């Protein structure tokens, strides 16, 4: 096995060529690295608009959405009416996944679709760095949306960077069969009267868990925290975008939520396996309920509902109104078909189209005219004990009186805040968890 000893000796005879080869190899690697570096470094300026092209035969306009926008039928309708501008939709299941990919594509300035759907929480980041996006303002769409939706997509210079799709006015969805078991009223008007303020809501919860100790009052501490947060005017950032998380309003939300964790919460993280399972196991009785949440309730509880399970919607939200969620369609400057993209986005976010979406998925429109559309106003939801969903959500939209200010770091800090709430769910001391939150926010700046 010692034959390997021969190798260096015979190798020495080739010392000349070998040294040359090594030199060759080294220079090849250097050339390669330099070549790649310059190839990547020489990208075009991402703030410059891409050169515009005609859609060629067989080429499509691309749009990427996440979750369920309810656009399948509408895109088919558009494609039939516009043979020259065929639209192709890509669906990503979760916003968080799409956000990561979107960030990566923005880094590369390559591979972005012509129309990009973004979550409302992400709009402040766009508004803070508007150079990558097409200004979509036009006479046609002026005044189309609820004021606060339009304002959230408008830069200080007046450029409109996104067309709003839906809004998320919140009501309370509740299990009326469990209310009955606990001896509480079940009629939706009576229930609404008992939850006018957060104090009322928590007090009713204490009463409920006393009667039914194995069922929590609400689905997750995180969703209640989000609901209360949506009524704070400056949750994380001041009007000039300086981060200020040590403000009394935010501290009050944190203290209230964490002090009720032990008695009233399922202590599950939202969207987790346990959270999904808690719908069918009588895990909780109430849940903050924007229009789009109904789709989640139906899937997780099961359709048709298991025997004895009765969901209902109360036309109330503790502490007034609140908006949770709602998305936008945007057009990046890297698109080579900006005009067509804008035209399509304007069409699909028009009141008539969004009223149809409401019927299909329950995503509540953010367009002023759609809110007065009889199709929307008169719709009822059979799954929720035939509740007049259209009327309830219109009332809830009208009740929104505070629009929280969202700066560019809003969605990042929100993630850390949810972590802090979840830590308390898992048994960490609230004070300790808060300190960790402060240091994590520090690390974001």
């Amino acid at each position, binding site marked *: 096995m010692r034959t390997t000893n021969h190798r260096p000796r015979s190798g020495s005879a080739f010392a000349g*060529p070998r040294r040359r080869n090594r030199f060759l190899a080294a220079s090849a*690697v250097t050339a*390669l*690295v330099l070549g*790649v*570096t310059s190839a990547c470094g020489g990208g075009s300026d*991402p703030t410059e608009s891409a050169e515009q092209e005609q859609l060629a035969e067989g080429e499509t306009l691309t749009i990427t959405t996440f979750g369920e926008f309810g656009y399948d039928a509408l895109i088919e309708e558009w494609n039939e009416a516009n043979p020259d501008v065929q639209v192709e939709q890509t669906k990503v299941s979760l916003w*968080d996944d799409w956000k*990561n990919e979107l*960030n*990566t594509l*923005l*880094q590369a*300035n390559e591979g972005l679709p012509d129309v990009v759907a973004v979550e409302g929480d992400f709009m402040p*980041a766009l508004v*803070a*760095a508007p*150079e*990558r996006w097409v200004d979509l303002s036009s006479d046609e769409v002026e005044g189309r949306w609820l004021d606060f939706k339009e304002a959230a997509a408008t830069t200080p210079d007046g450029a409109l960077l996104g067309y709003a799709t839906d809004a998320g006015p919140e009501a309370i969805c509740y299990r009326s069969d469990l209310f009955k078991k606990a001896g509480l009223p079940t009629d939706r008007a009576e229930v609404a009267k008992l939850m006018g303020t957060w104090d009322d809501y928590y007090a009713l919860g204490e009463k409920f868990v006393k009667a039914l100790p194995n069922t929590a009052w609400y689905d997750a501490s*995180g969703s209640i925290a989000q609901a209360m947060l949506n009524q704070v005017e400056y949750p994380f950032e001041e009007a000039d975008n300086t981060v200020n998380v040590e403000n009394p309003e935010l501290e009050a939300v944190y203290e209230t939520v964490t002090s009720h964790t032990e008695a009233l919460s399922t202590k*599950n*993280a*939202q*969207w*987790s*396996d*346990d*959270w999904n*399972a*808690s719908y069918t*196991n009588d895990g909780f009785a109430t849940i903050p309920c924007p229009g789009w949440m109904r789709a989640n309730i139906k899937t997780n509880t099961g359709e048709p509902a298991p025997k004895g399970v009765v969901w209902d919607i109360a036309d109330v939200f503790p502490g007034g109104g609140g908006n949770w969620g709602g998305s936008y369609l945007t057009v990046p400057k890297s698109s080579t078909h900006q005009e067509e993209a804008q035209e399509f986005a304007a069409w699909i976010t028009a009141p008539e189209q969004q009223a149809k979406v409401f019927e299909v998925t329950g995503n509540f429109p953010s367009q002023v005219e759609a809110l007065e559309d009889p199709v929307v106003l008169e719709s009822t939801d059979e799954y929720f004990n035939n509740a007049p969903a259209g009327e309830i959500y219109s009332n809830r939209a009208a009740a929104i009186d505070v629009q929280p200010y969202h700066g*560019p770091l809003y969605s*990042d800090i929100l*993630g*850390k805040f*949810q*972590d*802090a709430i*979840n*830590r308390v*769910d*898992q*048994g*960490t001391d609230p004070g300790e968890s808060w300190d*960790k939150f402060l*240091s*994590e926010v520090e*690390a*974001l700046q």
Partner: protein
Amino acid sequence: MTHHAEPPAGDVATATDPAGGPSSPGGRDRRTRAAGSSTTPAAETRRLIRRQRRSRWDLKLSPYLYISPFFILFGLLGLYPLLYTGYLAFFDWNRAYYVRGDFVGLDNFRFVLTDPVFIKSLVNTFSIFLMSSVPQVILAVSIAALLDRNLRAKTFWRMSVLLPFVVAPTAAVLIFGSLFADQYGLINQFLESIGLQPILWHVDRWWSHLAISGMVNWRWTGYNTLIFLAAMQAVPRELYESAAIDGAGRVRQFLSVTLPMIRPTMIFVIITSTIGGLQIFTEPRLFDNTPNREGGPDHQYMTSTLYIYVKGIEDQFYGRASAAAWVLFLIIVGIAILNFAITRLLTRRSA
């Protein structure tokens, strides 16, 4: 290539002749014949010299061409990102505009090395690595030794240990997710049904490490088993016979014959599973069920690769993520060298 008169057949013969070169007898042969032909000797010599040169280049160059695809890909996908990451680690990153910011010197390294979250992620990485790689190698060797016997339906047993490896990690995590769910998980429901306290898999740091390394072991043990099995089958059977004649039992044979004979394979498996074990990402990422997926709300099971992902892709601090990636890279290189040295030392001592 201007000489059209050149017969193509001869060209091919020279190019494919592995011995074709100045000293090859074939070449000399042909030259003698060429001298007697009608073409001018000078032109013929030139032609031959060119052909010889070409065939020499062929000998010298073509092996490199054959192996070049790997090195080109490695350069593009391995070396370049590695070097560029090292470069980025010294720069700030403008999050809003997605461009490189100012040169900041060692600031990023300072941030990472003093970040309690990074330190925590390193501890988690090592804890999960030890809980997975060590039992994995021991288990794999033992199963391989069992499979090395004369079993009925050999192929069936051998292939079935590989089955978990074929399952996509994402699918595996879904299955394990319903096993390890804190409230309604199968394991906890079982524990509660026999009157025990449920285990908070996603809350307690060490239990979560155990659950994650369980997934890793489930996936990789079979793979390593097959590698060990291949090595064991190469051990000459006579050695076992003479050991048996000397009176060695099964266990003694395993310890004194099998283990020393498969040592090179041992080194290979230990080093690859060290590198893999220090880069665990998919399992903790998908095991997490909080919306943020940063290795638990308290980062109980955030590994260092997950930290790099969160810092870079989610929080958009490319400079800090690059610095963390280089710190992790150096740690892995260090440990791989250490591993190599230890196993070599052991080999030498017993040799």
